[in-house]
């Protein structure tokens, strides 16, 4: 075998702390290495051309590149190697950037380590075999999880492009957080006027199947061929019959059910439709509040319903859907502000959250769009907004910026002035972060046109005094203590991952970050993908995002799905397990451990049982290889031989254990 080795400088990223020339020099004396050099940027066009040229000139059979992480550029170089006329799997990468140059400062030790890692890659490559991909058909349907603005956009984009879409929403209506908003920044246009028609589009689209009030219970399969198990929760109302007339809501005697849509600013009935523009506009019985379901006595809604839709016996139903791709758009949750005891939230009724204030501003909200103090219903004159409640605060485990609170606070301050012209708003802030299009101008308008007073500093305490709330804090620009008498305090609560995101991540086998947001494939180059093929991200489930960003990412996710299906047939990764039939004794331990059911039992010509791998189902984890007592099932590209070759490169066996 003739191997070519390329040591990448990565500018000064590697060359700064690794002697790349010395590594190339060392590589020249490694077994089977016919050519070794160092280059400035191996991934660049001249870098790749140099590889192709070397393959021809030196008649190379395999290439090792020592550069960055294979998670970054393994595919790039596999394509290069393929262009050079070699099999793409006759390539190995040594990670001398993330694992060497960036984490160690001693050039000598780094260089030794880089030589070792290159040696390991060379030894592995010596055991590589050419691998071929296989094609398989994909189910051209997509599952969108979450019916907020991102999920709606993704579903509509896919459906308009001709794909069948299954949209699953946990609540009884789609719309998500955006449906709760009154106006949106920086245009101050009405949220439901923007979103409402899109929600109707979803309901009417022939390509979209909407499962509201439903959860994802399980997902099996792989890219192109997923099977999702969806649990449609019992609503105790036959939605085929329910017309959404709302008569049941009017007559229901239980008047103290919590109104989640209005953020508990009001109460609702035990049977209810969350808001008049809900899609689907269907009633749901809250089983924990319904008298009939708890005590067996009542049944008013069943008597009153003109379409005979009430069904107290209804059970959860399980539906399975086959899809080829999945878009996660589960959105975000809001920080529990009660953690900040000094703000008195939960104790003082006139300290509310931003989303509660949003409901109060909304004409369809519990106060009919009138801003009033929850304690006495009076119109507030002084309104204090406090930013970064659960954002950029390490002490409460939320060190990240929630991104859009600066903007919605400015919007709410502007709207306050619109609602109550003689009011005065104050905003306590750390920094103003308003980098979007038209955003900074919007903040200026709040200050200049609407007279919102911005105070730079944190609030230390809020306490009641003579019917007011006293907000005490620091003005760090003035270098003085400030005290503001407020009638109403609005806390700009930060963004956190959606409740249940962790469980969904486990179900879908995708990763989450430290804060429970879904982890993208790469922070810059794969912001929409996950590390699980065929699963994409849209909106705030990946991290705090405002509406334009959520919608953009949703369209991007839809484009990714369309791109995936545009190929017609998908090609399987050939890094799958294969069975050496001569060694296999048919114990089928491999089949028992395979998480994907990719190993099936077949009979050989003598009628003996043997294992066989279904290549399109195998995901290439290699659990079977580690299980097989015979060493008969081997994972391509990560065979025992290949892994041990790497081990041996580092540890020269001293007991004659080398199997070579």
């Amino acid at each position, binding site marked *: 075998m003739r191997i070519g080795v390329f040591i990448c400088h990565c500018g000064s990223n590697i060359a700064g702390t690794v002697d790349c020339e010395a590594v190339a020099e060392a590589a020249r004396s490694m077994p089977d290495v016919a050519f070794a050099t160092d280059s400035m940027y191996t991934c660049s066009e001249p870098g790749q051309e140099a590889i192709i040229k070397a393959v021809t000139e030196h008649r190379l059979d395999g290439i090792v590149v020592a550069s960055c992480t294979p998670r970054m550029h393994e595919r790039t170089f596999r394509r290069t190697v393929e262009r050079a006329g070699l099999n793409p799997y006759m390539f190995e990468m040594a990670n001398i950037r*993330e*694992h060497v140059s960036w*984490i160690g400062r001693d050039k000598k030790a780094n260089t030794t380590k880089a030589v*070792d890692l290159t040696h390991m890659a060379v030894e592995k490559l010596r055991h590589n075999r050419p691998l071929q991909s296989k094609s398989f058909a994909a189910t051209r349907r997509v599952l969108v999880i979450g019916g907020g603005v991102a999920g709606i956009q993704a579903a509509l984009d896919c459906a308009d492009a001709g794909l069948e879409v299954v949209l699953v929403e946990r609540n009884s209506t789609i719309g998500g957080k955006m449906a709760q908003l009154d106006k949106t920044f920086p245009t101050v246009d009405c949220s439901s006027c923007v979103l409402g028609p899109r929600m109707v589009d979803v309901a009417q689209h022939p390509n979209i199947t909407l499962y509201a009030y439903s959860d994802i219970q399980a997902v099996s399969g792989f890219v192109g061929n997923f099977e999702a198990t969806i649990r449609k929760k019992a609503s105790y109302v036959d939605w085929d019959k329910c017309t959404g007339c709302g008569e049941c809501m009017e007559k229901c005697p239980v008047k103290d059910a919590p109104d989640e849509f209005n953020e508990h600013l009001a109460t609702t009935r035990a049977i209810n439709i969350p808001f008049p523009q809900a899609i689907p506009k269907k009633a749901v019985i809250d089983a924990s509040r319904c008298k009939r379901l708890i005590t067996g006595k009542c049944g008013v809604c069943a008597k009153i319903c003109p379409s005979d839709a009430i069904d107290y016996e209804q059970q959860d139903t399980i539906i399975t859907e086959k899809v080829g791709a999945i878009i996660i758009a589960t959105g975000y949750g809001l920080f529990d502000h009660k953690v900040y005891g000094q703000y008195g939230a939960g104790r003082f009724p006139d300290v509310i959250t931003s989303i509660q204030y949003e409901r109060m501003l909304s004409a369809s909200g519990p106060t009919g769009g009138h801003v009033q103090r929850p304690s006495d219903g009076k119109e507030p004159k002084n309104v204090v907004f406090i930013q970064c409640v659960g954002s950029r605060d390490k002490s409460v485990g939320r060190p990240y910026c929630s991104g859009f609170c600066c903007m919605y606070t400015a919007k709410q301050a502007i709207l306050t002035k619109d609602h109550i012209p003689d009011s005065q708003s104050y905003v306590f802030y750390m920094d103003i972060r308003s980098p979007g299009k038209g955003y900074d101008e919007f903040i200026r308008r709040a200050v200049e046109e609407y007279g919102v007073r911005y105070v730079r500093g944190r609030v230390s305490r809020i306490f009641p005094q003579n019917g007011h709330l006293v907000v005490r804090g620091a003005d760090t620009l003035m270098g003085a203590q400030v005290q503001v008498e407020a009638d109403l305090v609005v806390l700009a609560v930060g963004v956190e991952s959606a409740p249940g995101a962790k469980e969904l991540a*486990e179900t879908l*086998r995708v990763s989450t970050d430290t804060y429970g947001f879904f982890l993208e494939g790469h922070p810059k180059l794969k912001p929409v993908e996950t*590390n699980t093929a065929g699963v994409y991200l849209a909106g705030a489930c990946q991290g705090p995002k405002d509406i334009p960003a959520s919608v953009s990412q949703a369209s991007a996710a839809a484009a990714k799905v369309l791109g995936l299906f545009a190929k017609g047939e998908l090609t399987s990764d050939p890094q799958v397990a294969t069975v050496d039939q001569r060694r296999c004794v048919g114990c089928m331990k491999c089949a028992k451990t395979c998480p994907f059911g990719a190993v099936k039992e077949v009979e050989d010509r003598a009628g003996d049982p043997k294992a066989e791998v279904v290549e399109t189902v195998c995901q290439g984890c290699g659990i079977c290889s580690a299980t097989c007592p015979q060493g008969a099932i081997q*994972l391509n590209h990560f065979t025992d031989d290949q892994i041990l070759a790497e*081990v*041996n490169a580092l540890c020269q066996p001293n007991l004659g254990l080398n199997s070579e």
Partner: protein
Amino acid sequence: MSAESRPELRIIGFLCNWCSYGGADTAGVARLNQPTDLRIVRVPCSGRMDPMFIAKAFYGGADGVLVSGCHPRDCHYSEGNFYARRRLELFLRFLPVLGIDPQRFHYTWVSASEGQRWQQTVTDFVERIHSLGPLPQLCESDPAMKQLAQCLGGGE
């Protein structure tokens, strides 16, 4: 003691491609300084780990072996790390039989976002191996060792 002034030991890390290898990458991207003793072998899943790989590393003279995968329930292949945990836990107890101090072996879970945790894991483990010192030369004439050598050498 500064990490730079002492001679390096031979420490191998087997890392799953999805979580821990990503975590090591994250640590690199964040320039989190680490001892240079550890060399990483990438495996697709911690469930791919045949304890034989670790045994062979020790018999090849590795002073320490570290295995790291995805946190339980986070496995890219849904349950590979559970298999890993079961096998490695058994293997840990079997190490003294092989004549290896079990302290030289450690398995753990690091996710792709946990760069700092990876830095801590590496630093702690390398420190531990340094405190144990280099692996004592295994006695080749020991009949049990010969037997094992035969067993281990037999498989590919």
